[in-house]
């Protein structure tokens, strides 16, 4: 059977454009215009209907083969019925209590003090904003992105969150042409539903409500339901939303970093043309240099009260080399806590305490690296990162499997566990039973290793030697989950400890209640 040739004579009847559109739709990644085209074809051509149903039918069979085994699904139905029919309100409350993060104190001013807030805004901040606008204008001219023909129209924004700045207060409604943020973070909501999370130092201006020129700073964009097509223009190129949440960070030296958190964007670069970036991909580019992979992206940690704001980890990278691989590691400073996202390519999967246990205290507030599940298949995988001070490195390894050699050799099993929870039935969860909420959780042993000075560390592949794999067929290989990583800074030991040579990283782990 040759799958790369035209399958049958039906393709002669239906235009290739239709096949392409149907294919993208079935794959869940239609381009603008595909849906309308396919609907029209379905209405007019019975061949298109047959072709579409054929595609969906095989897709459904393949999904069924790759999906949960019957037992896991039946169990999940049993649990769902149990939850629905016993005490639904109670179950909902408990669930909310478990999965809700810290309380949100971002309130809008009450109607009674709204006008007072706005008044004080204009009397108190007008001077600073005008001054800042002058600086912005100078900067934009110098940066070469100021276009006199596109001075822009004022855009109505509502301040949804403000932190570390006196220039914006929650609930303010402002008509902004320019946006200057010398310090702090501000979240702005546009009338279109687009949400901008701005991080100082930032300078930008609106051309119109769907187009923002970013001169410097980081803005995370969530376009919501109606913001399709929202564009961020930078000195190095344009980032056009195709239904997504993404981040653009323009540095003073002209380098621009673009990361996509969900959906996709189109990146337009004058030198290299248009490139589509997908969920979990990030690139760096300059005006003259084509986009190249950005290995890690700092994910904003909104947890209030963290004493340490800069990451201990830097330079996260791996040996996955392919010209178009653009996956980025999430780096969350101080982000380790109960309920935090575990993997970049699994949105619903969270780190969580074992049932009946508190989340391990020693992990709370550690820097978190969010890796990819897809790397669990690579036997040659290597991940490298650098720590800026003495640190304890934690690796969370799938407790259902024996550790790989590099982990057993260099790390110590603390004897404690956490769970990666929220899994849908999948090949990695085969054999697990759903929890009380109908989802699946994988237990991970917590391994650790101490580094007494700044060092660069390399971690190995999560997969086991081939003889340990429980492989029944090439489509049913059961492999461990990808491991997780967190790094907690530790107080440096006395200067005269040991006899290590300066510059040589400590190779052995300090035992921590050692137990395998």
């Amino acid at each position, binding site marked *: 059977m040759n799958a790369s040739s035209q399958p049958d004579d039906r393709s002669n009847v239906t235009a290739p454009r239709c096949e*392409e559109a149907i294919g993208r739709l079935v794959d869940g990644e239609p381009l603008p215009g595909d849906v309308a085209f396919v609907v029209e074809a379905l209405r007019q051509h019975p061949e298109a209907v047959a072709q579409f149903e054929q595609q969906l039918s095989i897709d459904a069979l393949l999904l069924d083969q790759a999906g949960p085994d019957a037992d896991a699904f039946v169990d999940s139905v049993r649990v769902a019925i149990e939850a629905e029919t016993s005490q639904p309100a109670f179950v909902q409350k408990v669930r909310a209590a478990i999965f809700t993060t810290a309380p949100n104190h971002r309130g809008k001013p009450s109607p009674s003090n709204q006008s007072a807030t706005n008044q004080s805004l204009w009397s108190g901040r007008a001077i600073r904003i005008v001054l800042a606008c002058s600086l912005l204008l100078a900067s934009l001219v110098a940066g070469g992105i100021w276009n006199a023909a596109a001075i822009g129209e004022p855009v109505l924004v509502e301040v949804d969150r403000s932190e570390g700045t006196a220039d914006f207060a929650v609930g303010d409604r402002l008509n902004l042409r320019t946006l200057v943020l010398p310090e702090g973070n501000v979240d702005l909501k546009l009338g279109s539903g687009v949400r901008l999370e701005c991080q100082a130092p930032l300078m930008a201006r609106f051309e119109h409500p769907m187009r923002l020129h970013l001169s410097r700073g980081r803005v995370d964009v969530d376009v919501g339901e109606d913001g399709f097509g929202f564009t961020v223009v930078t000195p190095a190129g344009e980032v056009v939303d195709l239904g997504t949440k993404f981040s653009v960070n323009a540095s003073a030296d002209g380098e621009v970093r673009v990361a996509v958190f969900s959906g996709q964007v189109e990146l337009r670069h004058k030198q290299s043309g248009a490139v589509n970036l997908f969920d979990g991909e990030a690139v760096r580019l300059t005006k003259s240099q084509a986009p190249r992979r950005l290995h890690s992206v700092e994910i904003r940690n909104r947890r209030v009260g963290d004493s340490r704001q800069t990451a201990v980890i830097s330079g996260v990278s791996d040996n996955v080399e392919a010209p178009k691989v653009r996956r980025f590691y999430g780096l969350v400073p101080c982000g380790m806590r109960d309920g935090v996202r575990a993997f970049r390519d699994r949105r619903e999967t969270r780190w969580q305490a074992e049932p009946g246990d508190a989340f391990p205290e020693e992990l709370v507030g550690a820097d978190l690296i969010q890796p990819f599940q897809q790397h669990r298949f690579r036997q040659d995988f290597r991940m490298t990162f650098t720590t800026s001070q003495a640190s304890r490195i934690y690796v969370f390894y799938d407790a259902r499997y024996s550790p790989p050699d590099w982990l057993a050799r260099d790390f110590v099993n603390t004897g404690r566990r956490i769970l990666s929870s929220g899994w849908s039935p999948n090949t990695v969860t085969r054999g697990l039973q759903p929890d009380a909420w109908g989802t699946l959780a994988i237990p991970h042993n917590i391994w650790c290793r101490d580094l007494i000075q700044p060092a660069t560390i390399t971690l190995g592949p999560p997969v086991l030697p081939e003889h340990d794999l429980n492989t029944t067929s090439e489509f049913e290989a059961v492999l461990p989950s990808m491991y997780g990583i967190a790094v907690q800074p530790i107080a440096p030991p006395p200067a005269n400890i040991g006899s290590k040579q300066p510059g040589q990283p400590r190779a052995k782990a300090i035992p921590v209640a050692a137990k395998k």
Partner: protein
Amino acid sequence: MSKKTPDNDWFMQQVELEQSGLRGFIRMLGVRPESVDDIAQETFVVAYKKLAMFERGTNFGAWLRTIARNLVRNELRRQGRRRVLANEVAEFLLSRADEKASHPGVEVEQAEQRDQQVAALRDCLRQLPERSRRLVQQRYFEQLSLGVIAAYENTNANNISQILFRLRAALSNCIQERLRTTHS
């Protein structure tokens, strides 16, 4: 469902029997792959709650499919992010499903063929060329996006989508051929 009753036992047996076919049916209504299991689960929960309305001796699978169609119809009325590929497409597929449901024989025959189709699919997968098998593995078993697969295969997402299209068509032909051989 805390009490173990004959009704519960019978119901869970039906869940076991019907789950695979129901999930396929829901996907055929244009539901996004990641939401198929959710809607299938909701269908069974609704069926359980309304079990008294089900007439024993009639086709339970057909009754489940009616519930699933209604759930997907509700989905189209929802605001916010929906669980279907696209409203207009799902509406079209729903109307097709409604039409088929008015000819119960066709729908039942399709449901009964499912086990044979699954067996044939397994055979056909084994016959795929190496690259095609790798794409099936990446797309369906590792759940990678087209963009990520394209990056590994050093091509673009559109090209991967077209290859997957042809691959599914080839698998469909192979399955049909096997079913014909079996029946003859």
